[in-house]
């Protein structure tokens, strides 16, 4: 890999790793279901940006854009369905606390 490409890859890779850590920490620590979905969104954003950087560095941005479009479609459906489930849990238990899910049967 050329020097300039490697410089771009390391710079972006560094910040992408930190963004991934933020999302992972959010999912692990929070008890609010909506915030957990927000953490998941951060994780997906890190992966999306990594794909774009890989495409730029390897000189094939068109190929990675096709993958990113697929990822974004799945991301939005995930947000919609997860938000709906969180809302349903709120109606069932009266709050958005993930610990309440332990009381469910099954």
């Amino acid at each position, binding site marked *: 890999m050329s020097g300039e490409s490697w410089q771009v890859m390391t710079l972006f890779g560094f910040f992408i790793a930190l963004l991934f850590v*933020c999302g992972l920490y959010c999912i692990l620590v929070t008890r609010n279901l909506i915030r957990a979905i927000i953490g998941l969104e951060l994780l997906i954003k890190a992966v999306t940006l990594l794909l774009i950087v890989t495409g730029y560095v390897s000189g094939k941005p068109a190929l990675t854009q096709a993958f990113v479009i697929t990822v974004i479609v799945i991301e*939005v459906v995930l947000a919609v369905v997860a938000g709906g489930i969180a809302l349903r849990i709120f109606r069932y238990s009266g709050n958005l606390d993930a610990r309440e899910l332990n009381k469910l049967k099954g």
Partner: protein
Amino acid sequence: MKINLILLILMLIAALWTVMGRSLLKATISLAITSTIITILMFRLDSPLAAVFELSVCTGLITVIFVSTISLTKPLTHKEITELSKNRMKRFWYLPVIVAVVGAGLILMKIKNDVTTMSGEWSLLHDVKSILWNFRQLDMFGQIVVLIIGALGVSILFEERRRDEW
């Protein structure tokens, strides 16, 4: 490169605000800001189509979904907010420390530049449209199925709500 660095730092600050902010609505807005900065970075990395998708879907649609979901839940009382914020800070103040430690670890690692890029038929493709329709038809089919599943899932959830209201 300097502009990229500034944008990446802003992106990280917005992400930290998303995770550590007290209000869910503010967290959603900062998530939208993160998305917008990622969009600018995508434009700068020669990926305009993905950037437009990111801006319209992730910054626009997902923010609307989150705001709608938050507005449909019950707001907390002042007393509950005070109690929650006390416990929250105990759990979340570790995040900047962890980010700093991971960052320092990555700087100290010094990864070697021995990565090779793939070659072959993919290198001939420069058009997103031709890739999607000629080489990734299965992805397109999968996207359509996922969209239908999402639409059906949401309609079922709202159907249940109407039945409850009767």
